[in-house]
């Protein structure tokens, strides 16, 4: 599904991601953990194309994507939920989610300006699918509110709905549980389990090790931009290198 091969990226001479190799199989939930600044978000940006890799190759669904623009990778079936909430201001919650369907629809300026039948059909379908996605993350009652007035937990859910709306093949979640309270966290975990059961491939960055252990089939540990462990949760948790990295951070 996704093959990351020897990918590196540095900022001002310091490597944020260094020679990372990672394979994610179809239908797998792969957790990515590591101390602050380990390079997890940078790795996600390299995969989705928001940052260019200096070295290495990235393939998605058997196709080289490392030279493709982010919107092209999105259209191939990658959806990301960013670590920092990025809801679109000046739009309602529903409209925000409708944006997620951009790559799956095609009505352009002319069709919109003239209100062509094709455009109307598209709009109806987009709204219906957005509502379904909102329902799925439990935001239905908020649909007509301005998106930027949502509490942070709901903003995260909104982004998730936007990402799911596009019917991705690969979903990248960057710390989706941070800032969520107990009940919201549980709800998110259940949703991820549901998505996994539906066969969706997921890359999950999360600091809460218990959360990742519960959801992931496999855990990759990053430290200082390198992969220091890769395996089933039970194995990775007792890895001496991993323990050292985490202890080193808290010391």
């Amino acid at each position, binding site marked *: 599904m996704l093959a990351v091969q020897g990918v590196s990226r540095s900022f001002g001479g310091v490597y944020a991601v260094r020679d990372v190799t990672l394979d994610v199989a179809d239908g797998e939930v792969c957790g990515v953990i590591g101390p602050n600044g380990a390079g997890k978000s940078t790795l996600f940006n390299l995969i*989705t*194309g*928001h940052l260019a890799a200096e070295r290495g190759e990235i393939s998605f669904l058997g196709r080289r994507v490392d030279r493709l*623009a*982010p*919107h092209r990778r*999105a*259209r191939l079936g990658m*959806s*990301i939920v*960013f670590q920092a909430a*990025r*809801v*679109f*201001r*000046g*739009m309602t919650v529903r*409209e*925000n989610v*409708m*944006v*997620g369907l*951009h*790559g*799956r*629809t095609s*009505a*352009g*300026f002319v*069709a*919109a*300006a*003239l*209100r062509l039948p094709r*455009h109307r059909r*598209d*709009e109806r379908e*987009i709204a219906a699918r957005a509502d379904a996605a909102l329902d799925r993350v439990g935001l239905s009652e908020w649909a007509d509110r301005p998106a930027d007035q949502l509490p942070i937990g709901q903003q995260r859910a909104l982004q998730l709905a*936007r990402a799911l709306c*596009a019917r991705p093949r690969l979903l990248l979640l960057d710390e989706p549980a941070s800032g969520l309270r107990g009940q919201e966290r549980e709800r998110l975990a259940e949703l991820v389990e549901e998505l996994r059961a539906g066969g969706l491939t997921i890359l999950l960055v999360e600091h809460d090790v218990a959360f990742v252990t519960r959801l992931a089939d496999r855990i990759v540990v990053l430290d200082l931009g390198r992969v220091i462990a890769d395996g089933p949760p039970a194995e990775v948790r007792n890895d001496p290198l991993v323990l050292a990295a985490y202890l080193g951070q808290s010391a």
Partner: protein
Amino acid sequence: MMLGRVAVPLAAAVTLALPAVLDDSALAVYVLLGLAAMVTVGVSLLMGYAGQVSLGQGAFYGVGAYTAALLALNGLPPLLGLLAAPVAAAAFALVVGLPLLRLRGHHLAFATLAMQLILLSLAGQLDFTGGDIGLQAIPPFSAWSFEAGGVTAYAYLTWAGLALVMLVTRNVIASRPGRALRALATSETAAASSGIPVGRYKLAVLALSAAFAGLAGGIYCFYTGYVAPGSFPVLISIQYIVMAVVGGLGTIWGAVVGAAAITLLVQGLDRLANLPGMPSYAPGVLSYAVYALVLIAVVLFLPNGLVPAIRRLLSRERPAKTR
């Protein structure tokens, strides 16, 4: 919603009735107001909805005016010139937008300003644009058997154009491409992650706003009968931004209200400055001072502009009445 259902027919009725009751000098102001509003709707779309700044909308206005003028002077039907004006302005925007839209914020603002200055100096130097003197004796607008004789005809033409521009803008904003524009205004990264080709959409919205300005320019050249570099000073681009901000960025009606407020204010001050006994520098000083003061006052007291403020006022009053 309620407001729209009352306001739209009312505005349409007033628009249609005004040319019948206004005298010629007032009608001239009415035409200029409509043309300014047409450009300002584009500015509001570009800045308010898509978050891109342009201090060079006057250049697109000029490209439209020169295009229509040149075609008409070369014997082509004025209708063709008028249709070519927005097309040429949009094509020009696509060409200059390709490098310019890589810039953001005030870099983009300065670059668009520079673009207008370069264009003005070119128009002042080249032979086919008539140099500093410009193009004269442009025939009046005509289509089929209709010929625009007086100001009234131009008033209707202008306001029909404005209605078209507003309708297109409204339809675009509430659609898939419009959502894409509003999304990239907040975050280009998040927009791209949703599959939006950000660069292409920024170009498209610049071209659309340029087409609106170009259409206004086309009408303007037939209305005045001549165009020269002096008709499109940098101040005019700034004026469009002041109008959009005063009326309320990111509202279509705001563009019209802003254009009306500033046009009438400037006209009033012009009369004041030209009263006997006023110094000769009064008109210039007053018009610049007014842009500055109005802009500062609006930013300080009505940061969202006039139209959002009026809407809030009305929606606050209504429940009070039903009680």
